[in-house]
């Protein structure tokens, strides 16, 4: 009886093993790369805001402390988005006619808050607490990056769980003295290994890594 498949099919059959294996690796690899890339995490992406507020100018240029606007960061889970009145503290005196600030003035006149767009978005099922981190010597810049050098704010960290756990598993590598938490120019000393251990002791940092710490 004649063969149904000619000789060439032997090679196709063997090649399919290699090609099949490689394509599985390629697809999984591509997926893995995608989920780690800024395409997915939205790192280093500028976000359109109602007013293009510049952190660089206000923080580095004018020397305004983080807490002037993000007033609840030490006491609450939420760092606080400044109400329009905070802007108007200064902008009723300076740049009062600047066209770029018109949305601020409008919001002030009409008593309707500005709809700022959140840049650092955590998943709904993550209960992050700013005050817990601030009070245990984790600097703002540790997660938010060099905000004082960002004309427009963007997300620098991946905000993925493995990134959270990096610090939760080894807080001594990242902790700084409490009075340096809001210092945007702080750099880690050469003896961070030693200082970190000591700070972990002093600040009673207990590495919390069980699921329910963040997923309640």
């Amino acid at each position, binding site marked *: 009886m004649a063969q*149904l498949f000619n000789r060439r099919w*032997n090679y196709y059959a063997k090649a399919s093993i290699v090609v099949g294996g490689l394509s599985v690796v390629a697809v999984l690899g591509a997926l*893995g790369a995608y989920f780690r890339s800024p395409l997915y995490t939205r790192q280093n992406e500028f976000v359109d805001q109602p007013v293009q507020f510049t952190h660089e100018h206000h923080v580095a240029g004018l020397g305004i402390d983080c807490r002037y606007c993000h007033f609840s960061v030490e006491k609450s889970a939420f760092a606080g988005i400044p109400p329009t009145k905070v802007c108007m503290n200064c902008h009723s005196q300076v740049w009062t006619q600047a066209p770029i600030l018109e949305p601020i003035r409008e919001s002030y006149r009409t008593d309707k808050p500005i709809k700022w767009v959140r840049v650092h978005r955590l998943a709904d099922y993550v209960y992050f607490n700013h005050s817990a981190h601030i009070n245990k010597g984790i600097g703002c810049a540790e997660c938010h990056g060099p905000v004082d050098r960002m004309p427009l704010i963007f997300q620098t960290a*991946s905000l993925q*769980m*493995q990134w959270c756990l*990096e610090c939760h598993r080894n807080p001594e590598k990242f902790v700084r003295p409490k009075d340096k938490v809001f210092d945007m120019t702080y750099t880690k000393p050469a003896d961070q290994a030693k200082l970190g251990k000591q700070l972990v002791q002093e600040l009673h940092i207990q590495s919390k890594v069980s699921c329910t710490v963040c997923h309640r």
Partner: protein
Amino acid sequence: MASPSASAHIAQESDPIIAPGHSLGSVTEKISSVVLTKEFRPGWLAGFALCAGLVMVLAISIGWLLIRGVGIWGVNIPVGWGFAIINFVWWIGIGHAGTLISAILLLLNQEWRTSINRFAEAMTIFAVMCAGMFPLLHVGRPWFAYWMLPHPNTYALWQQFRSPLQWDVFAVSTYATVSMLFWYVGLIPDLATLRDRAKNVFAKYIFAFLSLGWRGSSRHWFRYETAYLLLAGLSTPLVVSVHTVVSFDFAVGIIPGWHATIFPPYFVAGAIYSGFAMVLTLAIPIRKFFKMEDLITSRHLDNMAKVMLATGLIVGYGYFMEAFMAWYSGNDYERYLLFKNRMQGPYSPFYWALIFCNVIAIQALWSKKVRRSPVALFILSIIVNIGMWLERFVIVVTSLHADFLPSSWGMYYPTIWDVALYLGTIGFFLMMMFLFVRFVPMISIFEVRMLLEQKKEKEAAS
């Protein structure tokens, strides 16, 4: 004294594995004709339609589950494991007979396995599919079920290797993979036979593709035998290990009625017991419907009934030991659970029903007459299937519904969706069996032929 011609009949044997009168050609013709026909018999169609209807029930109950969540089931605190785990254990147990028949009986050179191994293995695969559905659905969000497999991820997530449920993942997935490979490798020579005999061009190409270029050269046979033996060797430990790991789901928990060292052997015996019951449940109607009585003879039924009796007695010993250890330990909780709760509590009718099904009813198998009567065996096999389901129900529910703290006691009642999902998997299982008997040779053609030839040689030598 046998005639040397190929169509020679086997000399009358008092209790043959293959009924007399068969030649190599008639075996091939008989088995392959079921597959290689355009005809769909009305009985087959009716059964298939009924099972397909149950698969619709399965689809609906899974759909509603995904929309509403596991809250539609009867599970809640204190009974967090209800039908899902009961059915999982029941189905996985059923699969074990197929592996035992195909692997262990092969290694032990039991000739009678030949005509039942193919569909017992198919039964294993379909049972494992049904079993796998339950834990997948019970996790609540099945699309995250891949989290149970170790893989690089951005959550820095790692599996809890101290949990027996995690061991289950590996045990069951290994079992499913090896069973499937074993079944497929064993099918290759038969698929080639079908390729050569098929008239329909479409069917010819499908069988040619699936038979991987099998030509039956001695090199092919040599490789086939090696691979098959290796797979049998791989499957053999799985017969014991898979249900051992399943029993750890219970035995590792410190709950009265679960925390017992007898669990692994007792579960393995129970698995083989229920598996053989299911093989009988399927084999008896199949051999009748397709007139395969000369290949699946009463000798096969007899042997399977004997295995069922032996494993059933081990299971009965397990029940006895559970009660004995509860009494002998002197532990209040163990004693309360066994004697007050299981035997006299709200679920006691289930306990006594299970004792009747699994211990008392099967004593009938001591009689050779019963072991050779298809009707009696069919009824008994159904009773054992029910009994083994009840066993898992009693183990899961009585231990959980009343634990150490009386204030947290409660009752478990399955909902309509629990029942619908269970019936749905039965429908799925039977539907797959219907498809299998119609589109795949249900008995291994080449192995029966080989057996026939060996018999003839033996006779010629004697």
